[in-house]
């Protein structure tokens, strides 16, 4: 209504504004349509790549600038300590902080690199080391930006780990930077296995930063505290990389699948080092027995479904979810 009255009141000067508005709206719609089409998407990815490369230094500066605030957040946690203790510690630390800061930083970096190297050796990963330079800039996805791109051999779809476990998967690549979609993103999906019981499922991200282990049938044994690792099914992620620790398990009466929530073990923050796995060896894929076990689990779940549910249960839907459990991974 207000729009109509305002539009009807547009004068000569406003004609140009209206014309500009229409042109910009049309251009925006065309851009949006083209960027969603698979045929023209690569051109937009290239444009994004150029802008990512150009703006990388600013992101880097922002990350640097945020470091003191991250330290401040840690300090806030210590405020509850008694004042006398704090003052004593402050006196003692004052002289040491300056000289220790650099050494500590180097020691931490060495530790992280050592842990990365250990992970690399343990899992025999063929990989490229990279550093996280920024987090996600939008509210639509959970991602990080790393300082290695196509010039370093990075390709879309490659798994990314830190010293603790799987971080995510490369989603976009520019010549000098890459965007990694985190496993905590809602659109991420990784074939997973509970290390203790060997129950297989699919780890999916959630907006609250946790992970859900989906498609684990109710008859499988999963306990709080169990470690969940990648299963290697699907051939995208190397098997055995830690994903998360189970924090809650709910088995509803009559439910086919359990509701399992995990805390991710890998939490990459700015300036953390990560490894981009560039190649998987044969031993890093799931074995034939493991694939068979996953298949059997799916069949069991389908049979349980047909037994326990009413006639209106869609059989096609059951087989669809079963396929996902046996190795569906996002790419």
């Amino acid at each position, binding site marked *: 209504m*207000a*729009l109509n009255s*305002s*539009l009807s009141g547009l004068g000569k*000067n*406003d004609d*140009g*504004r209206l014309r*500009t*508005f229409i042109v*910009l*709206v049309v*251009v*925006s*719609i*065309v*851009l*949006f*349509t*083209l*960027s*969603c089409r698979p045929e023209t998407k690569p051109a*937009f990815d290239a*444009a*994004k790549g150029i*802008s*990512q490369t150009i*703006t990388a230094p*600013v*992101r880097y*500066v*922002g*990350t640097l*600038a*945020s470091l003191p*605030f991250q330290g401040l957040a840690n300090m806030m946690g210590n405020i509850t300590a008694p004042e006398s203790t704090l003052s004593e510690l402050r006196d003692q630390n004052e002289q040491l902080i300056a000289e220790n800061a650099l050494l500590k930083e180097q020691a931490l970096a060495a530790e992280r690199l050592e842990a990365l190297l250990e992970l690399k050796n343990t899992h025999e990963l063929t990989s490229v080391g990279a550093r996280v330079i*920024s*987090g*996600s*800039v*939008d*509210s*639509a*996805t*959970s*991602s990080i930006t790393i300082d290695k791109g196509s010039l370093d051999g990075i390709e879309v779809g490659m798994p990314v780990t830190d010293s603790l476990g799987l971080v995510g998967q490369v*989603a*976009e690549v520019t010549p000098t930077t890459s*965007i990694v*979609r985190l496993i905590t993103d*809602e*659109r991420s999906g990784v074939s997973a296995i509970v290390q203790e019981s060997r129950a297989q499922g699919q780890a999916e991200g*959630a*907006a*609250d*930063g946790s992970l859900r282990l989906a498609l684990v049938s109710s008859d499988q044994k999963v306990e709080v505290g169990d470690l969940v690792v990648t299963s290697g099914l699907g051939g995208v992620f190397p098997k055995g990389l830690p994903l998360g620790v189970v924090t809650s398990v709910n088995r509803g009466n009559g439910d086919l699948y359990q509701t399992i929530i995990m805390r991710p073990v890998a939490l990459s923050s*700015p300036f953390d080092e990560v490894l981009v796995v560039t190649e998987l060896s044969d031993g890093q894929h799931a074995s034939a027995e493991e694939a068979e076990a996953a298949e059997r689990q799916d069949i069991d779940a389908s049979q349980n479904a047909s037994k326990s549910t009413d006639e209106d249960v869609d059989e096609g839907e059951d087989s669809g979810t079963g396929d996902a459990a046996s190795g569906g991974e996002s790419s």
Partner: protein
Amino acid sequence: MMIVNDQSQRTRRVVILCVICFALQLALAPFIVIGAGHVNFCLVCAFAAAFMGGGSTPLWVAFISGLFFDLTSTTPVGLMTLLLVLAAFVLNLGDRDRILDEPVRCLRDGAVMVLGVELLYQLMLLIVEPGVPIFDVLFLRWLPASLLDWLCLVPFVLVLARTKSDVLTLGGSAKQSFPGKRYKL
């Protein structure tokens, strides 16, 4: 009678606004998070420019801001651009500088528009890339992002209102503004 043509002032302020917002978007937006919602300084830039009026300028600022956001994020190009152009047009229907006359009303309209833009943005993404629970989209992305956007819009509007006041009165107190005009009589 002293005539002060503030067209160049306006242009300068818009350029400074864009530079500050774009730098903040790249450098700080990744770290300002509630739930899974990030602040969008490009939206703040487009809205602040829309409140300042100036013919087609706010529309171009909205277009460039949206394009900048789309190119530096992981979402499809053109979506935020479209939403910001639409929002800037609606916020600037009267084509006058509202930021001095009615900053509180600007903030109120901005709040409503932020909620609308962020909601449409999340819903469109849900259509383009389905598979995300609607609860998560609404309560962990849409609402927190909207709140952050609005909170960041407040200081920009207040600062712009103050600087505008200083420009119009050449440092004195501003009693009245003249919508659609560039002069102080």
